[in-house]
């Protein structure tokens, strides 16, 4: 090969390398590889295993739809876990979003201390996902813990209430998730700041009082933000894992058995053989459920969200 043709080839490569379309792909390469390697392949693999009996030790055997059929027809714990998760999402999410909205309205106030307040109300959200908080929560709600100690001071007769009984245990987890309303609150605060003053002034001139202004100006303009927080927090509560695993581990009598914890227990049981195929089917069902819920929320959007 002559020197000249080598030179031409190099300049061809350089030109190709510096083209915008090439640069775009090269810059995107990390994501393309990451998406294939860490998302697509694992998902495809688990879809295949969801049609298999697979205990990790021995090779998987194809059983068709058996896992799915068993889940939907015979598995009582599946419906229990799904019920617990839906209950948690249905109560915890609205409470959290309402709390976030109320506190944001209160903190939307011109004072120098507001930065300090905002930070304090947000702090639980920043560290709420840690193991430390899970441990703390367990200790606080124990029958001889802080919560009961404080309650017995306020209500003298009330001592030794069992927070981890079958009824209240789920509420210990709901209180924990509502406590972390901080990030939704911050999103509300930033959209409150974007509402133009003129709208309030115009409403005042029309004779609207504070309550009317809230329901006719503030609330409609906040609906896109309410929607956003609702979608995000619903997905989050469907997928809560660490806190329920550590604080109640599903008990007592499966009354706090979150779907994700159930799935984990099937894949990595404390006793007996792993049921990876079964757990894969559970994961896929959850994916479909979460997508469906998100889809329904988006469908409902046009009914109540006000787009300016």
């Amino acid at each position, binding site marked *: 090969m002559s020197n000249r043709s080598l030179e031409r080839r190099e300049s061809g490569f350089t030109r190709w390398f510096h083209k915008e379309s090439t640069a775009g792909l090269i810059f995107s390469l990390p994501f393309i590889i990451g998406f294939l390697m860490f998302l697509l392949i694992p998902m495809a693999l688990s879809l295949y295993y969801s049609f298999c009996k697979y205990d990790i030790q021995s090779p998987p055997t194809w059983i068709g739809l058996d896992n799915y059929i068993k889940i939907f027809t015979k598995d009582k714990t599946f419906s229990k876990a799904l019920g617990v998760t839906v209950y948690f999402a249905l109560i915890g999410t609205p409470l959290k979003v309402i709390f976030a909205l109320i506190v944001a309205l209160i903190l939307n106030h011109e004072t120098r201390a507001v930065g300090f307040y905002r*930070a304090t109300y947000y702090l*639980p959200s920043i560290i709420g996902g*840690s193991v430390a908080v899970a441990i703390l929560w*367990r200790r606080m709600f124990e029958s001889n813990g802080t919560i009961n100690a404080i309650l017995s001071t306020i209500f003298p007769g009330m001592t030794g209430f069992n927070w981890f009984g079958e009824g209240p245990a789920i509420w210990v987890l709901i209180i924990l998730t509502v406590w972390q309303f901080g990030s939704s609150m911050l999103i509300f605060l930033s959209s409150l700041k974007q509402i133009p*003053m003129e709208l309030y002034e115009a409403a005042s001139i029309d004779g609207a009082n504070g309550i009317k202004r809230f329901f006719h100006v503030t609330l409609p303009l906040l609906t896109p933000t309410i929607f956003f927080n609702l979608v995000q927090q619903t997905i989050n509560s469907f*997928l809560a894992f660490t806190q329920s695993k550590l604080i109640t581990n599903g008990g007592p009598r499966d009354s706090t058995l979150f779907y994700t914890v159930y799935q984990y227990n099937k894949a990595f049981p404390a006793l007996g053989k792993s049921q990876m195929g079964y*757990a894969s089917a559970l*994961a896929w069902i959850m994916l479909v459920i979460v997508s469906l819920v998100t889809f329904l929320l988006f469908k409902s959007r046009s009914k109540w969200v006000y787009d300016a």
Partner: protein
Amino acid sequence: MKTERKPWKEVLYHILVAAGALIMVYPLLWMVFSSFKPVDTILPTAKQLIPTEWTLRNYIQGWKGFMGYTFGTFFLNSFFISLTSTFGTLLSSSLVAYALQRLQFKGKKILFGLVLSTMMLPAQILMIPQFMWYRHLNWVGTYFPMILPYFFAIQGFFVYLIMNFIDGIPKDLDEAAKIDGCSYYVTFFRIILPLIVPALVTSAIFSFIWRWDDYLSALLYVNRASMRPISLALQLFNDPSSGSDIGSTLAMSTLSIVPATVLFLIFQKSLVEGIASTGIKG
């Protein structure tokens, strides 16, 4: 909203909001103060916040750890995992964000859709699929599953956050660089990267805190006691069979939230803005 208020109303406002703030942080204050109480007084004085008698015994006792490893090991492990994965996240996410925000190429729209879809695919759904795949790759028992994927921009949230930030940088700067003969690669490293530092700081803090708190991955992938990060170690330490007591557990729990709390206090402002502009989970 700027409204004229009577002074007594202003005072009432501050009393109520401050009381609410106190209730919010009370559990954390209780943990911190209890960790300085003598261990046998923690539960009997549970409703008293400030210790009558202060002691460091819980910290000295707790730091000794269990199964032959001190908490120093667990903290170092957590720092190593959180720092390397955060570095990977920042590097890869900013490269991808630049491409998706500034460059025109085939398939860009699809890629952007996929990036957004990763925000809907949280770790809890992926835990079983990824575990099986990493097992095929022989990664179980190593730090690979907890570090390597983050070098490939798999968290759409960070790509999206940085994209929003790049959008705010005037395009004239890119154009000027192009006229000066800079390639896209040079433009990225010389022009864009220095300008997106604020977005990188916000991303770094969130990434660090999430990796630090990540209990699920540690549970799935760490087998050896010497490799345990703080999240897993703390959970095992909390079990009475490890020889711990409530005092040393609360002391080590308090220490474990120090990094996140300090980062939060220092960078409070940029975190708040980061959330306000992208809107994320918490």
